[in-house]
């Protein structure tokens, strides 16, 4: 929690209550350090320059004294309390500290237990106030010395053994950013600028974008609206360092003059120590890049049920039963129940699969069953892809879109294509010769014969047949589109903060789901229908059900916008990719974050689960596709080749080929079976999470296909493994 934001007031550098290493009270000190900042020791100076708080200098002094008073009282130093009160001339009740954010004060007030302070509001921040002040003391080195501290650390790290140097160099970036932010927060503008100029060039190249943002932040007010940076300040940057390297660092920093840096490190960094060999630079580079450092080991330890749900039994039409039985789990009616299946799927419960009723899923309607039968029929005619049997690619170019095409989706059976545009419309086209029709009006529906066989055709109004339909309703560019699996609904998410559900039978808008108040960057229906997930600028992803007007789950934890949301094939997990360069996997059942994947160096725009549910592929603005093993929580592959942002990823229907489309106007095909093939599960040093990525991108690349100046923003494999791609022609 944050304490009520209030500047802690002044202090003299040699006050005898300082240097109380607040390492133990990290959570408090950390958060309050934001707000309870002290100014540079300047005896007698008044309130901090540029302070937004309305409290005058005098009251800030009072706050400090109050805090001290509370502390003394807490430690039962009653005599000191009396003396201090008398000498300072404090009234019985103190001023109300003004909180800029009443919400936060409410939160903190409710969280702290009953305090014995005289005032109500001050009582609420009893604990934090003390810690605020005290930790602020301990934090406050002389700002001019920050450069000295940093250079000292730099010299030390450059002097250690090679094997440790790579690991310890990880400390540079977070330390640099935190020190810079502290200088800015405490209004030491000139020192901050000098510090930045001197050391920003030393940082890793992949932090360049962050550094550019930082360079524009020179005042405290600049930080206020930037939620990402505020989160960065309050969260701990995670570093994974081997025990030996850590000992080295600790020993050096605990020497007399390096205390300040040690405090800062303890405050802002979380060092996840592992026993084992120190990692090499390339290994570290592969995993680093995110805004919050790497993932702690415990973050990736929860059990994830990545298996697929059992397919339900369907009464198959008699003539096709023999064909279908191979592809179907469950026991076909005519055959004897077999223990080992005909295909590769086991009849017994997959230990890695969630139980059928782990989360409630809608039951299959008759139309769904018919759909599944169609699916199975198509599956038999599916082409088996492989390195020597590449799919054909059919590209759908949107002409005259004038760079306004922002989202595309295909239905699963590839019969409809929908495009979301920057002019806030959604357009649906029919890919097959069959035109789009609306359902007849109520009066006409009464007239038709309900018992006829083609009743589903008769309910359609022929007069409204057309190749495409336009759906208007949003008031901002449409950034995410998703068809429902049963082709009845279409979801669209837009910059206006709403997610809209459209009916594809009447081509009208049914519901507008309001929850995000900020642009919603992506939305997707669950593979089983009924649930959908959306993620937006407010850094959370929400899980909704079509019949609830409020979200069912909120997945909060990212430090920056959620740019991409995908369901796992078993609908029990949701993967979210974000601008903070991490991918998180959330459990739908309880909203917990079960996996954190770091390694990308840019915001993530594409995610794809493999059809068997075990692996996740992700693409970002850095042009790399990373492959992750969900069960172990490790990176298992890196596909280099694209030169620009990757906006779409898709596995083929059986998972043999991974197709990626990017802004560099190419579609690339990668050999997924080979990429996942060499994994020996025992080989993983899961304890340390060391990965040895082979640089085999070239071998895995099966083909590169250029388009004519058309960035590829969507990919879709038809049920027969034909690859469809879509993009807007951009000459």
């Amino acid at each position, binding site marked *: 929690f944050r304490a009520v934001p209030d500047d802690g007031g002044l202090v003299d550098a040699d006050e005898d209550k300082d240097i109380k290493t607040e390492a133990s009270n990290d959570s408090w000190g950390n958060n309050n350090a934001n707000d309870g900042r002290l100014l540079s020791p300047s005896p007698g100076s008044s309130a901090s320059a540029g302070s937004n708080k309305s409290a005058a200098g005098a009251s800030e002094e009072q706050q400090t004294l109050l805090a001290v008073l509370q502390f003394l009282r807490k430690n039962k130093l009653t005599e000191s309390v009396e003396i201090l009160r008398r000498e300072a001339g404090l009234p019985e009740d103190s001023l109300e500290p003004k909180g800029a954010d009443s919400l936060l004060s409410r939160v903190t007030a409710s969280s702290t237990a009953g305090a014995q302070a005289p005032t109500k509001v001050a009582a609420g921040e009893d604990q934090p106030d003390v810690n605020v002040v005290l930790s602020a003391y301990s934090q406050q080195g002389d700002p001019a010395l920050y450069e000295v501290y940093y250079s000292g650390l730099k010299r030390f790290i450059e002097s250690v053994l090679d094997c440790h140097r790579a690991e310890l160099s990880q400390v540079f970036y977070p330390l640099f950013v935190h020190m810079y932010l502290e200088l800015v927060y405490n209004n030491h503008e000139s020192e901050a600028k000098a510090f930045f100029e001197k050391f920003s060039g030393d940082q890793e190249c992949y932090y360049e974008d962050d550094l550019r943002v930082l360079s524009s932040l020179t005042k405290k007010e600049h930080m206020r609206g930037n939620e990402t940076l505020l989160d960065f300040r309050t969260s701990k940057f995670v570093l994974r360092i081997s025990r030996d390297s850590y000992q080295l660092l600790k020993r050096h920093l605990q020497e007399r003059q390096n205390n300040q840096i040690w405090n800062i490190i303890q405050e802002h960094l979380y060092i996840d120590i592992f026993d084992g060999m120190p990692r090499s630079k390339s290994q570290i580079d592969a995993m680093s890049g995110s805004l919050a450092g790497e993932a702690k080991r415990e973050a990736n330890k929860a059990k994830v049920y990545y298996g697929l749900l059992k397919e339900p039994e369907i009464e198959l039409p008699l003539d096709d039963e023999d064909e279908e039985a191979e592809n179907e789990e469950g026991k076909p009616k005519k055959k004897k129940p077999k223990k080992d299946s005909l295909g590769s799927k086991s009849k017994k419960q997959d230990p890695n699969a969630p139980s059928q009723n782990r989360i409630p899923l809608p039951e299959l309607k008759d139309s769904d069953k018919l759909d599944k039968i169609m699916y199975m029929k198509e599956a038999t005619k599916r082409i088996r892809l492989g390195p020597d049997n590449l799919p054909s690619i059919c590209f759908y170019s949107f002409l005259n879109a004038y760079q306004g095409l922002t989202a595309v989706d295909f239905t699963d059976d590839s019969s409809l294509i929908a495009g979301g545009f920057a002019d806030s419309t959604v357009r649906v086209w029919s890919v097959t010769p069959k035109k789009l029709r609306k359902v*007849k009006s109520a009066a006409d529906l009464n007239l038709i014969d309900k018992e006829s066989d083609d009743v589903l055709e008769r309910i359609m109004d022929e007069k409204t047949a057309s190749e495409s339909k336009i759906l208007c309703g949003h008031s901002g560019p449409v950034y995410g589109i998703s068809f429902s699996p049963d082709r009845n609904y279409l979801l669209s998410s837009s910059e206006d903060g709403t997610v809209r559900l459209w009916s594809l039978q*009447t081509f009208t808008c049914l519901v507008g789901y309001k929850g995000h*108040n900020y642009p919603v960057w992506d939305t997707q229906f669950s593979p089983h229908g009924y649930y959908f997930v959306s993620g937006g600028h407010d850094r959370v992803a929400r899980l909704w059900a*079509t019949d609830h007007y409020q979200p069912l789950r*909120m997945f*909060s934890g990212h430090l920056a916008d959620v740019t991409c949301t995908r369901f796992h094939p078993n609908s029990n997990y949701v993967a979210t990719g974000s601008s903070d360069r991490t991918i998180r996997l959330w459990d739908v059942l309880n909203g917990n974050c079960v996996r954190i994947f770091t390694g990308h160096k840019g915001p993530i725009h594409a995610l794809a689960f493999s059809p068997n549910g075990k692996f996740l592929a992700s693409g970002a603005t850095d042009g790399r596709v990373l492959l992750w093993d969900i069960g172990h929580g490790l990176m298992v592959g890196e596909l280099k080749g694209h030169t620009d942002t990757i906006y779409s990823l898709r596995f083929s229907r059986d998972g043999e080929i991974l197709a990626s489309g990017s802004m560099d106007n190419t579609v690339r095909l990668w050999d997924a079976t080979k990429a996942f093939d060499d994994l020996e599960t025992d080989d993983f040093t899961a304890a340390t999470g060391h990965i040895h990525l082979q640089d085999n991108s070239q071998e895995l690349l099966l083909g590169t296909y250029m388009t004519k100046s058309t960035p590829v923003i969507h990919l879709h494999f038809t049920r027969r493994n034909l690859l469809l791609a879509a993009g807007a022609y951009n000459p």
Partner: protein
Amino acid sequence: MSAPKTIPKDAQVMIQILKDMGITEYEPRVINQMLEFTYRYVTTIIEDAKIYATHAKKSNVDADDIKLAIQCRMDQSFTSPPPRDFLLEVARQKNQTPLPLIKPYTGPRLPPDRYCLTAPNYRLKSIQKKVSSSAGRISVPRLSVGAVSSRPSTPTLGTPSVQSVTTKVGTPVSLTGQRFTVQIPPLTINVFTFATPSTPAVSNVLINPSLIGSKNILITTNMVSQNTGGESLKRKHEDDDDYDAL
């Protein structure tokens, strides 16, 4: 017309800002956009500050007024998403409730009607304006549940001939009901045979011939398809326009 030889100073400043932020590729109109935004923002702030200064009975606008103006504007227009701890707290509460069970066989799963956009968003004004097309359709008011019924008419239709017809009948009674009600004057039967200029808008309007002859008729049709009638009007128009444009 020749472009000015020198770019105005403000535009140069904008170019410099873009360069400092590392943006190298941008359309030339971006400069104009930025200039416009800056001008609008600054004038709004200064105007607000003037108001605050006069309110505080000061003769000059000073820094405090500006600060206050900026702060108010920030809270109003440039809001930022909620802070992380708040989101975590809300998420924790929301994620504690178990996922609701799904009722089987319920048709389209939509939230309660109040939260849907499927209700008609118009009310028809008076019955005099009623006209029918040769197809025998007539506009009838479709009312949402619990709403007061209104007199049926459609704004798009209105021919004097109809007016005269209905006036013979007398003003229809406006009926209120809890269910969907429609009112059609009994004489509507005659109206059907009129050949009225039917615009495309009319032809899609709902009619239920079985309603003829009764004053208080229930239409128990699906909300969704009800709405089709009203909105399909607009949609049809758009489709036509679309075709023309192509």
